[in-house]
């Protein structure tokens, strides 16, 4: 069968359609990745110039305590902050979808609004509130006559960051979940009502199963987002220079390496290693999510 198809007949018309996409894809996705991999194979020194070092940078990254402590920070962040954020988003989505909320569209936009605030502005705003001398925390301390713990201290900084990120992204995740709820066939609810099912029963039996796919997507986005944590700690570092180290998150570490240390090669390596780890974890979560779906 295969042999009967003449070679000359092969048509390239399809490529003309995907060509523009492929060109842009190659330029903005593949080229940076390829260039980063290329960079990661070299080492540039102030004394001695540039030399090919093969996998040395990778071996160094895998044994680098600063990298792993940065990874540890975002891992804790992921395990604690993401479930809280998704739970809140789920709660809000269900409330808005319940049809019993007065002014549902107002709440929808109000909860979503923080997502429209740039991360830098959001962080600055929270930073002012976190201030123990002039901020909201200071005012509350004065008002209550107690000394509230400093949100910018080394012990609480991760929680404070989690609070900012949760505030920013609950609305975004809510919207993903809410739109998944909107496509549920209303006849299911009618049937449930006829059967005398309670609202709680409807949520457990109809809404949650319908949300599984959307929750999976939201989780994967959140995993990627957590591992990429950068803006928030970078801004807060101005206020908490000692609590947030220059290797607080993997991305911040990569930033310090290249921008303060001129170690572009090692910085590229750290980013690639972190990218691969992110990929593996996101993939594992997705595999697990898929299995449940079957």
């Amino acid at each position: 069968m295969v042999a009967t198809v003449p070679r000359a007949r092969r048509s390239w018309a399809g490529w003309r359609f995907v060509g523009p996409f492929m060109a842009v894809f190659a330029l903005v996705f593949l080229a940076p990745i390829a260039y980063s991999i290329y960079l990661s194979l070299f080492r540039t020194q102030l004394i001695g110039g540039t030399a090919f070092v093969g996998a040395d940078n990778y071996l160094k990254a895998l044994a680098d305590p600063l990298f792993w402590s940065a990874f540890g920070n975002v891992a804790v962040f992921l395990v604690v902050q993401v479930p809280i954020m998704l739970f809140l988003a789920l709660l809000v989505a269900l409330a808005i979808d319940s049809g019993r909320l007065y002014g549902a569209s107002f709440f929808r936009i109000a909860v979503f609004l923080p997502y429209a605030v740039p991360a830098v502005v959001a962080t600055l705003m929270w930073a002012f509130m976190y201030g123990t001398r002039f901020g909201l925390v200071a005012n509350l301390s004065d008002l209550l006559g107690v000394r509230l713990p400093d949100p910018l201290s080394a012990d609480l900084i991760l929680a404070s960051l989690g609070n900012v990120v949760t505030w920013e992204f609950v609305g975004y995740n809510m919207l993903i979940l809410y739109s998944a709820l909107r496509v549920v066939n209303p006849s299911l609810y009618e049937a449930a009502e006829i059967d005398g099912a309670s609202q709680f029963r409807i949520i457990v039996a109809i809404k949650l199963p319908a949300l599984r796919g959307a929750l999976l997507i939201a989780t994967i986005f959140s995993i990627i987002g957590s591992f990429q944590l950068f803006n928030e700690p970078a801004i807060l570092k101005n206020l908490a220079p000692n609590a947030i180290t220059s290797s607080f998150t993997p991305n911040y570490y990569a930033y310090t390496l290249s921008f303060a240390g001129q170690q572009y090669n090692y910085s590229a390596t750290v980013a690639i290693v972190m990218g691969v780890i992110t990929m593996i974890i996101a993939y594992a979560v997705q595999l697990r999510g898929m299995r449940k779906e079957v």
Partner: protein
Amino acid sequence: MTITRRRALLAGAALSVSLIATACGSPGDGGQGAAPAQSTSATDQEAALNAGGTITVWAWEPTLKQVVTGFQAKYPKVKVNLVNAGTGDDQYTALQNAIKAGSGVPDVAQIEYYALPQFALSKSVTDLTPFGADKLEGTFTPGPWNSVRSGTGIYGLPMDSGPMALFYNKDVFDKHDIKVPETWEEYIEAARKLHKADPKAYITSDTGDAGFTTSMIWQAGGKPYQVDGTKVAIDFADEGTRKFTAAWQQLISEKLLAPINGWSDEWYKGLGDGTIATLVIGAWMPANFESGVKAASGKWRVAPMPQWESGGKATSENGGSSLAVPEASANKALAYAFMKYAGVDEGVQTRLDAGAFPATTAHLNAAEFKDKKFPYFGDQQVNQVLAEAAAQVVPGWSYLPYQVYANSVFNDSVGKAYISSTTLDDGLKAWQDASVKYGQEQGFSVQ
């Protein structure tokens, strides 16, 4: 099949998102070492000034604004873009990246003395000898002049200098009947007395500042950095360093330092309302007081830096900047002409009038300079104290050839001393280790 592809795409997306961050930060090595050697005499600079053109100057020093105005009035064909690209480290980061990227590089950049060796070593800034900078020896005081020289090259023109002095809020001192400290022992006593009398007031603020710490060690006679070309030795356990840590540890442990970050809005506010009662800082500070702490006009005074031994006369340099020409500048003759105007010629007086502190011997010794009364400082003749400090700088100090990086990780290690039970000595040891490690990675032979 579709599922697999979706998985692959998602996974791919995860990877590429991670990598974009690096891709932005890792441009090629274009724009380096390409500029041809050029020799420009004074007539060439004159010609460039008459021909006119536009140069971009990156600086944060407040008095340069007036200098630019004066310069443009004198040479109407020249347009100077004065850009504040950040203070200190922020600006060096931007500058290093512009240089690495080979575009957006300014023609003149303000670079502090501690940072200049790093730029000189990587040949990112131009050797100014061909422009006649070598003939300026003697024009500047020895400290700043030695700071801009590296080997046979001269990589910047000194703009100001920063011999340290004690700036104190006289109102606060009078109110609590505190004597102006002459030794560090008295300083610590004053800190205790002040904070006890007013729990909201602190002797000074400090949350860990590499420049301040190294300057303090310098005054105490410590010499933690020994640099000989590419051979570097780092030792933060010498006697001078110990003297500093023993004293400062008391202030940290007893919580006598305001936990306010330098140069933040809160810091300026604290200087204005008496929360921060003193600053031990470089002689370039008066201009910053006048522009940033207007609320406290008339309250501050200047005294000599507290001493380690009663009756001693030792100071150190804190900050102080040069102006340098990046190698990638397209208009070096014009850039040098501007620097010369700002650092040697008429510009110096303009800056002095606005409260800056000179690096030029003639201005430093001029009666007009020394006798000037500062209304901000209650008509005190501030420069008498500061000029004296300039003559008492402890000799023999050197910074690392990669001090910019070292300072950027200072708070990772020494910062711990300010927020945990780690001691300053341990923090400095950790900082030393990090600096040694980086030096070795960069090909220096470090001990």
